[in-house]
């Protein structure tokens, strides 16, 4: 993450001031987050867990949250780490520099959208083909998948609340897709 503390530059959120609500769904941009894309082999995990002070999830479609830090399983050797901006997560690539792994800061590559309300599953399923019932996708479940033509990462943070992570440049498409979906329900 770039050091903006000494700069007067203001970074615009790609979905600034956007909000959409109907009777049963609320779609709003997520807070700014620190994000790390982590790739590592099995024998490195224990050491990385210590640096992260969190146990990386090792089974498909699961996430582990501790305080404000969340680690999402994306693949057998791939994780997405999310944390609030004030954390020391941006130090992680430096702290892992001696190890054979890849930790890339993607805080500004991604942005997030929060979809909540009892119509949330219906709205997401207008473009996402996954089974989002509570049995198949319980609270804490996460997965990389698609919404329409855009890749998203979906994390269920509540019974009817989803965190949708997408690339910043695709956020306009994803936002409009979700809003369109909400209008048609």
């Amino acid at each position, binding site marked *: 993450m770039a050091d903006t503390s000494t700069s007067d530059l203001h970074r615009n959120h790609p979905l600034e001031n956007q909000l959409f609500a109907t009777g049963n769904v609320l779609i709003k941009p997520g807070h700014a987050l620190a994000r790390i894309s982590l790739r590592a082999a099995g024998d490195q995990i224990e050491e990385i867990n210590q640096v992260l002070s969190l146990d990386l999830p090792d089974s*498909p479609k699961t996430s582990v949250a501790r305080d404000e830090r969340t680690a999402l399983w*994306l693949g*057998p050797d*791939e994780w997405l780490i999310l944390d609030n901006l004030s954390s020391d997560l941006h130090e992680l690539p430096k702290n892992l520099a001696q190890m054979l792994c890849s930790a890339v800061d993607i805080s500004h590559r991604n942005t997030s959208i929060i979809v909540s309300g009892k119509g949330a599953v219906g709205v997401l399923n207008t473009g996402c*083909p996954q089974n989002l019932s509570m049995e198949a996708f319980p609270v804490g479940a996460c*997965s*990389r*998948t698609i919404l329409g033509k855009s*890749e998203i990462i979906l994390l269920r943070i509540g019974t009817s609340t989803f965190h949708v992570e997408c690339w910043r440049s695709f956020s306009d498409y994803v936002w409009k897709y979700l809003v369109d979906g909400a209008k048609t329900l």
Partner: protein
Amino acid sequence: MLLIHCPYCKEDRPELEFHGAGEAHIARPENIADISDAEFEKFFFIRENQKGLVFERWRHLNGCGRFFNAARHSVSDKFICTYKAGEAKPEITEEQLASVLPPARGDK
């Protein structure tokens, strides 16, 4: 829509998350600079393209991102099984093949 079993995610996932990647079990020659043009052509371009049982590479592109292999029927498009990349070709039994055959002509 097909449901495809990803051997890494260990569950059936919708077809839209996947991407086909051609014939499986084609080993790149270790001495690629020394082989003749005809041998290179065979490795690079020539494919079996069989009607019936085929072994294919697939990638769970919008999911775990991993490549894996699948045994499939090329006429009915149905999957028999999927297995992790690097594993040997599984034995396909007559019953397994019969279960994915396309309907015979004239059948409704």
